[in-house]
């Protein structure tokens, strides 16, 4: 295992200390329990937006705390959901009296821990609504399974709901908006390499020099299928057609196209992927109105990419364009 770390057990704490040192202009970091919050929280009268999940997905979620996005983020250990006490403490710390939205990715652990925290927060008189993101089309969706994973759409939901909360919209509306973003977004990812969980010390899976995993999540878990390595254009064809056919996205739809790097893939390759996606969508008559290209929801140092498409309407475009000032995403401020 080759990583820029000290001891595997200290990675998350030291990362948080790094964030605290680097971004004290915008965030405050609690080390016991772990959470990152807006420096100016609680913002009185504003709905607070809280998310969280395992670490190893940076900049998500801690890097998305700030004006126009999250009020707080709760990082768990690497790839491990945070615990209820963390989430409760963060929820209390940022609650400004107008209620708190929990944006939860659909993983058993995240669901259970956020549920427990929400129950405890409600006992403390804080109004909490939880919305679960589950946009990963690589996973079969069914009542009799855990359903789809929450992946790329989470980033977009955090931005858009953060903007709505900043604009003073009430909890019910912000939660409804979050459900709308989730309902209109779909994602799928692939990996060229595995990643190594620091505490495990070796790659989660092994891939041959000519193999790739299609349909991976963001926790180093193997994907749905192992295939022969293919070109960027072929990979995009597989990911994008699965995504487009699922919702389905239709001709004349306007979308936000999000090409995400898994952590170990450089930007030069993401632009090659974006080019292919742009061509693919043009071929389907789908118009890219907004885009995001970069490594925003990662899986440690995994090499690979994921594509997320979000169907846009005027409201979503306006909220996407609204100012955001976080370490990981910033414009208009």
């Amino acid at each position, binding site marked *: 295992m080759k990583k820029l770390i000290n001891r595997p057990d200290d990675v998350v704490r030291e990362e948080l200390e790094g964030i605290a040192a680097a971004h004290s202009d915008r965030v405050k970091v609690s080390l016991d329990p772990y959470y990152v919050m807006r420096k100016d929280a609680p913002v009185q009268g504003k709905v607070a937006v809280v998310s969280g999940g395992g670490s190893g997905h940076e900049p998500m979620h801690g890097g998305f705390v700030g004006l126009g996005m999250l009020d707080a983020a709760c990082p768990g250990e690497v790839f*491990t959901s945070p615990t209820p006490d963390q989430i409760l403490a963060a929820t209390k710390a940022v609650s400004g009296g107008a209620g708190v939205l929990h944006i939860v990715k659909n*993983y*058993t*652990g995240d669901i259970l*821990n956020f549920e427990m925290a929400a129950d405890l927060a409600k006992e403390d008189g804080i109004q909490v609504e939880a919305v679960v993101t589950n946009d990963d089309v690589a996973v079969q969706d069914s009542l009799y399974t855990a359903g789809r994973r929450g992946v790329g759409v989470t980033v977009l939901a955090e931005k858009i709901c953060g903007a709505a909360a900043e604009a003073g919209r009430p909890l019910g509306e912000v939660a409804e908006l979050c459900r709308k973003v989730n309902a209109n977004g779909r994602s799928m990812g692939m990996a060229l390499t595995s990643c190594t969980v620091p505490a*495990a010390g070796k790659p989660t*899976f092994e891939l041959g020099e000519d193999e790739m995993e299609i349909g991976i999540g963001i926790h180093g878990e*193997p994907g*749905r299928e192992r295939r022969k390595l293919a070109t960027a254009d072929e990979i995009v064809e597989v990911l994008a057609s699965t995504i487009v056919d699922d919702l389905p996205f239709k001709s004349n739809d306007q979308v936000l196209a999000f090409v995400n790097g898994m952590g170990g893939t450089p930007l030069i390759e993401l632009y090659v992927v974006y080019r292919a996606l742009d061509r693919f969508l043009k071929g389907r008559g789908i118009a890219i109105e907004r885009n995001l290209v970069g490594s925003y929801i990662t899986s440690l140092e995994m090499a690979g990419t994921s594509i997320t498409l979000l169907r846009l309407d005027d409201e979503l475009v306006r909220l996407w364009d609204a100012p955001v000032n976080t370490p990981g995403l910033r414009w208009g401020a």
Partner: protein
Amino acid sequence: MGAGYPECVSFVQGFAEAVAVNREYLTQLDAEIGDADHGINMDRGMRAVIPKVEALTDQDISGLFRTVAMALISTVGGASGPLYGTVFLQLSSSLKGKSEIELSDWAEAVLAAVTAVQARGKAEPGDKTMVDALLPAAQALREAADEGLALAEGLARATAAAHQGMEATIPLLARRGRASYLGERSQGHQDPGATSSWLLMQTAEAAFAKGN
């Protein structure tokens, strides 16, 4: 003769040791169909449990298990944190007021724990989760108690049933938890949570059956 407070403490310590010894093994099982952290998670949790348990003074079984539950919930995270937290929370409430655990008490408590885990996690038997080890163990305990067997024997049957349930997860297609994302690729692998649950039953047997 049932299991008293000291046996319960050695059950908890035994589980911590078993988890520590099997940290890599559980993590490796999770690497195959999950995210390679189950052993790490459980070990982090049980290491946090031990000093809390050692600090206890009032020899209360229910309080002991509640302490274990709270420590797990606040340090493990993931799916196993709330679920094992639920197991111990339920053991705590089922055993409230008891200073000795007889086979029928333990059978009832473990059955209630599985029921609580299912209520939280919505897993049915056969979904390839810890339920597949815990439920057969609870049923074996129930039957052993109904048959009037000795505690030691009942515990041995529970361990055997958990072991069988654990092994029976191998061919299953996961329908809950992270392994479910793999669809058919989850088949052919043993569930990590079922494995740690078998360890739980095994350490209960080792601790409670001493001299029984």
